[in-house]
């Protein structure tokens, strides 16, 4: 990682917990270029030739391996669309860590739109971690519009952890998933917006095979004058079970629109949605204040716990 400067190193650390070169397969992208890549016997990474992005191919039966593909932008005014496709074979068990960090100290907007497509083979298990982070005090906006598409074959399992806690000015996150029989999708999204930020988070999960299931849980906090729209939809077209939950805290002048929706196209589809929005409960603050915290410290602790 010789070509990396301090800002880029910090960003990589924020989005991928990387202190150094990761183990296993990786592709590190900084300011629109690949600055480091490693493949393993089971995991191959190739640059796409038609558009910007990479193809990641994971062989059948690959277990206990990981792929890191973090992206950082530290140059103001950079706009990029990146297409990353993951082809996961059968009977795999892998960890995929993605994420994007933008540091914009300039006056021009920086934008990274990553389109991730996952094709998950039969009986494979994938854990996917995606973190988004923005920093820098320039007037240029930090914009991230990730699109995630997940195509799950029979008996596959996908656990997704999507985190966006700080510094992204505008985001439109779209996640689409299609599940075959006995496939299982678990999503944990954590979102915090502050300042004048806007975030849209859209999920559309289609349960197409018998025995498929999805659990989509979003926890979010909107502070200052920020706005969030959470649109969680599950479509059940087989004997399946689906659950969505939006649980949100509003602070200051924060605003949230939660639009959970369910569509059942099969008599054996069992679908549930829950949504709750509210400010921090007064009793919670009081309890922590009786333990010696100030009101502001109590708020911080409650939010930290909620988004953990």
């Amino acid at each position, binding site marked *: 990682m010789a070509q990396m400067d301090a800002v880029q190193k910090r960003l990589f650390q924020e989005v991928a917990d990387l202190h150094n070169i990761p183990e296993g397969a990786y592709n590190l992208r900084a300011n629109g270029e690949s600055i480091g890549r490693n493949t393993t016997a089971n995991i191959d990474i190739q640059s796409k030739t038609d558009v910007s992005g990479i193809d990641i191919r994971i062989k059948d039966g690959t277990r206990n391996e990981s792929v890191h593909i973090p992206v950082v932008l530290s140059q103001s005014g950079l706009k990029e669309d990146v297409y990353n496709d993951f082809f996961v074979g059968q009977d795999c068990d892998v960890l995929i860590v993605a994420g994007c960090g933008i540091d914009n100290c300039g006056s021009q907007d920086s934008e990274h739109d990553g389109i991730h497509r996952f094709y998950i083979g039969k009986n494979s298990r994938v854990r996917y971690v995606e973190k988004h982070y923005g920093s820098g005090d320039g007037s240029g906006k930090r914009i991230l519009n990730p699109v995630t598409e997940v195509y799950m074959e029979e008996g596959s399992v996908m656990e997704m952890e999507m985190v966006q806690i700080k510094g992204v000015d505008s985001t439109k996150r779209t996640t689409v998933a299609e599940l075959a029989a006995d496939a299982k999708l678990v999503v944990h999204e954590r979102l915090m917006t502050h300042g004048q930020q806007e975030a849209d988070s859209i999920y559309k999960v289609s349960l197409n095979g018998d025995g498929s299931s999805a659990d989509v849980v979003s926890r979010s906090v909107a502070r200052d004058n920020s706005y969030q729209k959470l649109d969680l939809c599950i479509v059940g077209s087989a004997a399946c079970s689906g659950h969505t939950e939006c649980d949100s805290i509003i602070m200051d002048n924060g605003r949230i629109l939660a639009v959970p929706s369910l569509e059942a196209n099969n008599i054996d589809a069992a679908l549930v949605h829950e949504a709750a929005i509210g400010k921090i409960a007064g009793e919670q603050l009081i*309890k922590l204040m*009786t333990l010696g*915290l100030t009101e502001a410290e109590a708020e911080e602790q409650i939010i930290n716990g909620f988004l953990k």
Partner: protein
Amino acid sequence: MLELKNISFSADDGEVEIIRDISMTVEDDKFVVITGPNGGGKSTLAKLIAGIEKNTAGQLIFDGVDITDKNITERARMGIGFAFQQPVRFKGMTVVDLLRIAAGKNLSVSEACEYLSEVGLCAKDYIDREINASLSGGELKRIEIATVLARNVKLALFDEPEAGIDLWSFNNLIRIFEKMRSECCGRSIIVISHQERILNIADEIIVIADGRIAKRGSRDEVLPEITGTESAINICSRIK
């Protein structure tokens, strides 16, 4: 030492008077039980001491300092602890997180476990549990008590600590109070309770009714007068 001087409290813009001109002193090293009928103002009095409610008249003096205008945080930092009657849940926060906040330091897991064992919870099962709806009322109540134990308080207030806990932990609770007293010199404990077994270990009993002190004195003086009334009931009156 805690001194209440002519404390009154009204709610709804003075329409409803809940505490009427109460004056009392809680000496150091004392175990005081406040009892009395429901709606008499016991919990409100405890909340006034912790600063959760603000008295509308009168003065509170704690260890020689006028705390009337001090807020909850300041009073907590001076050594006042409060265990709520109905503990609150925190989504995402774990038991060890809460104990660390209570202790005001980065408690080691084994230190945190000690407090949980004190309240009869198997520490390894609970330390990483979220304080959410998955905990029962009794479990929450014990964790609530553990948060007070984790703080080295000078004055501990317990609002109906026995409510919602079973017989076994009731014995445990009494042992906890006794240990708290022996452990720290100068510490006083105020418990709101109707239970005879807690009244039985009191140095002093205060009966609050209709916002006033109806009776006050040593256990031997007050207990015989109130036994069999709403102010002093057995654990399960149906068994009798």
